């Protein structure tokens, strides 16, 4: 924490600027060890947005650090740690919880439409778990790549498995719950999706969508 703060304090115009910079650090969860390189991708992004704004407002004219330099200070030049969230799915309320979590996780990285696409895709997979397998887990992961933000999702259950994957992906299937579009539609909302399932072995669906870094 001190390394980042030490770098910022000298360029701040006055006590207000320094206080603002300190305030930004307080927005981070206290559990985080905010030394360079220790923050995850969401924390880096939020801290950068705050620092960039307060730098513009409070720093001595001409001395505000460019975002690139700020990022190096925060991450020590390394890629930010990925952010992983895991949810157990048992009820329809859990489906809403993962919908919300997906929106919260993606909102400052993806476009509005992409956020809705991803939350909908996650919702479809979570609902499949609660309807067909009774229980399972959904894992959301956000990471940074040199040119892209990368959102990955994984839905795992130990349910009855899927017997007719070919039929489902040919579009000829109509389920009793949705419109038979759950899996095939989810694939359309993602860049890539893989289904691993067999009768009695449960189901594992993983998918990914990327967005250019802005």
């Amino acid at each position, binding site marked *: 924490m001190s390394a980042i703060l030490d770098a910022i304090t000298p360029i701040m115009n006055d006590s207000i600027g320094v206080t603002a910079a300190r305030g930004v650090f307080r927005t981070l969860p206290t559990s985080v060890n905010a030394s360079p390189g220790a923050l995850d991708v969401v924390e880096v992004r939020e801290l950068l947005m705050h620092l960039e704004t307060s730098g513009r407002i409070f720093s001595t004219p001409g001395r505000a650090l460019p975002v690139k330099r700020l990022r190096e200070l925060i991450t020590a030049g390394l890629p930010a740690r990925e952010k992983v969230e895991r949810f157990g799915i048992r*009820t*329809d*309320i859990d*489906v*809403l919880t993962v*919908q*919300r979590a997906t*929106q919260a996780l993606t909102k400052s990285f993806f476009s*509005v*439409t992409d*956020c*809705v*696409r991803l*939350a*909908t895709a996650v*919702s*479809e997979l979570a*609902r499949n778990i609660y309807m067909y397998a009774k229980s399972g887990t959904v894992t959301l992961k956000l990471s940074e790549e040199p040119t892209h933000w990368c959102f990955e999702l994984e839905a795992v259950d130990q349910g009855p498995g899927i017997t007719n994957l070919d039929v489902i992906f040919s579009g000829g299937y109509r389920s009793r*719950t*949705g*419109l038979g*579009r*759950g899996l*095939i*539609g*989810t694939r*359309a*909302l993602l860049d890539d999706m893989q289904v691993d399932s067999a009768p009695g072995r449960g189901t594992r669906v993983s998918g990914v969508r990327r967005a250019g870094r802005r």
Partner: protein
Amino acid sequence: MQRTAVESFIPLLRLGHCVFVSVPSELSDSQARFLQDTVSQRLSEAVGVRGLVMDVSALSIVDSFAAKILGETASIARQFGVKAVLVGMRPAVAITLVELGVDLRHVETALTLERALEKLRVRIVSLE
């Protein structure tokens, strides 16, 4: 399952020959079914209702299940001789539904409440 206060309340308003329903911002499966039940019950009891307006402007996520429930509710309304119109869908939701391949062609839609009422041929007559 426990029913929360939110879950057991669906805002329904009568406006002339129309019933106006505000779909909550988040729909769990049981809430969606509850919405369908509430609307069906109201339509079967009400006298002289010709139109049902479903306002989905608060809904930020519509997946295939929620879309199915909305479509079914429109079909149920038709059984009672009531024409249903969906109004106020968010652009991102519309794009997602099309990509998802959900077919809502059998449901009448309108961009604004005014256009929805036009489609239902409901006139708001001022008394002045």
